[in-house]
């Protein structure tokens, strides 16, 4: 995949790869993860599950591997922490070949979250979260502090949840604990295999939101596998689209939308469907930045979050009777506005769309 499109650490990944190119070049030395010509053929399989994948992930990057079932996306993910061993090729984590270090040590430095969560049912929430710190021999006080910090972080009040059993939690709460457990020893890398796949839409949306916030706050490398196109576009700095064991395109969401590499990608993201495009494109890429040139009749009462999709923005504009609406950050501060003129750009094709006020996606971070 072309290196110049790498979107670095929670930065200006949205600027169609251009700003990303400069910063990417600056950080070109140590990649967080490098995957070099990796193949995987399972015993008795007719074709390789992963067929010659090359991929570099920058420090602090949120990379989504998007593909349908059988595309090899999960297999690729699980070769990074050696749940599966590759047939050939090389994977470097922080410049070190994953096969050159003891596998347990490798895994303790990589957070791992799976769809089924896999909490230990015979342990309390606190004991679950303390798993890796205990293996690493942290002292008790440090572990207790860390557990409470993580429970707070995942919006589970410690005094209320510390001593609960996993089965006393809802699915969403279980996955919150799962994420807290993966973050327990503060690993620089987080591998997530469809972590929100079995959650209801509302819970999924709030966990996506929190994960994004978390990732920006702690600058983790997140590699996130999903088959859900909306989810991929909501979360990713870059999306690697996989099909039949290969990466067919790895680009920023915006480039993927504007320049799908082939028919498969175009069909996957439904490039010709305007409503779908509204869902995938973030407000931040189309709004007018700052308070400059606020048109008369702006309905500040109607606002959309910075990372909302254009679909949500359209709904807000419709609700306000066609008048522009404010775009606000997490602290509810107005960072820009969006109206008909900006929304129309999407339907008129990428050239116009890119011409409109494209803004940095994570301006509030």
């Amino acid at each position: 995949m072309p290196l110049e499109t790498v979107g670095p650490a929670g930065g200006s990944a949205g600027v169609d790869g251009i700003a990303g190119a400069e910063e990417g070049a600056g950080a070109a030395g140590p990649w967080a993860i490098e995957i070099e010509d990796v193949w995987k053929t399972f015993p008795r399989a007719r074709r390789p599950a992963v067929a010659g994948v090359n991929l570099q992930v920058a420090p602090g990057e949120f990379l989504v591997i998007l593909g349908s079932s059988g595309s090899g996306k999960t297999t690729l993910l699980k070769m990074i922490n050696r749940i599966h061993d590759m047939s050939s090729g090389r994977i470097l984590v922080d410049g070190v070949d994953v096969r050159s270090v003891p596998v347990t040590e490798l895994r303790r430095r990589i957070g791992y979250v799976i769809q089924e969560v896999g909490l230990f049912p015979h342990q309390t929430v606190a004991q679950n979260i303390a798993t890796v710190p205990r293996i690493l021999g942290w002292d008790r006080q440090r572990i207790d502090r860390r557990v409470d910090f993580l429970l707070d972080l995942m919006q589970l009040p410690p005094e209320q949840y510390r001593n609960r059993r996993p089965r006393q939690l809802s699915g969403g709460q279980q996955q919150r604990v799962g994420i807290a457990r993966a973050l327990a020893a503060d690993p620089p890398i987080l591998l997530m295999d469809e972590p929100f796949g079995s959650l209801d839409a509302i819970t999924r949306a709030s966990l996506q939101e929190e994960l994004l916030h978390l990732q920006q706050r702690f600058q983790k490398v997140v590699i996130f596998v999903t088959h859900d196109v909306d989810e991929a576009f909501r979360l990713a700095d870059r999306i690697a689209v996989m099909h039949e064991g290969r990466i067919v395109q790895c680009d920023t969401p915006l480039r993927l939308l504007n320049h799908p590499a082939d028919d498969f990608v175009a069909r996957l993201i439904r490039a010709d469907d305007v409503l779908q495009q509204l869902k995938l494109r973030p407000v931040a890429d189309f709004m007018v930045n700052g308070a400059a040139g606020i048109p008369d009749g702006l309905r500040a009462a109607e606002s959309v979050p910075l990372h909302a999709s254009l679909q949500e923005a359209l709904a807000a504009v419709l609700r306000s009777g066609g008048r522009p609406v404010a775009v606000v950050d997490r602290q509810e501060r107005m960072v820009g506005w969006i109206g008909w003129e900006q929304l129309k750009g999407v339907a008129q094709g990428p050239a116009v769309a890119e011409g409109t006020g494209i803004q940095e996606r994570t301006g509030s971070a």
Partner: protein
Amino acid sequence: MNYLIRYWDRVLELFLQHVQLTVTVLVIALAIALPLGILLARFQALATPVMGLLGIIYTIPSMALFAMLIPFLGLGAKPAVTALTAYSQVILVRNVVVGLQGVDPAVLEAAVGMGMNPWQVFWRVRLPLALPVMLAGLRVAAVSVIAIGTLAAWINAGGLGVLLFEGLYQYHQAKIVIGTVSVALLSFTVNFLLQWGERRLRAWI
């Protein structure tokens, strides 16, 4: 009733003998079944032939098995313990294997993925989660050892079976009733206690 009042010390002695026989058998049987079950859960290819063999042993009538062992081990507790241990293997081993293999694969994947070594995965995750099923096996094994154990009196191993056999030979109804009630009481108590333990364990897990 008169018999029980007059000979309560003998009944108690036989009762305790029966308990001792049962406990001895279960301790030895567990010492064999646990490692064997762990091995079979690990190496699945071995499971089918070994479980088949244990199944065959289980089908041998107990009187016949006692008789078969006498030429090698003589009369008394030795052949009784050996035979009863052999019988309980099929129940215990199967439950150890099923318990260990029944652990949710996602839980194991999470454990492995977090960097637990195989030893830690086994002791901290797999074994504790398999315990309720293992305990259920122990309960069934205990009850069947208590029942089959009555026949051990036939080869001079003592226990409550002595009362039953005497009652049969002497046409002594009181002995038969007392023997039967005692065995049932023992069996019921053990079953109840282990079931309670199992339920506590499941609640805990």
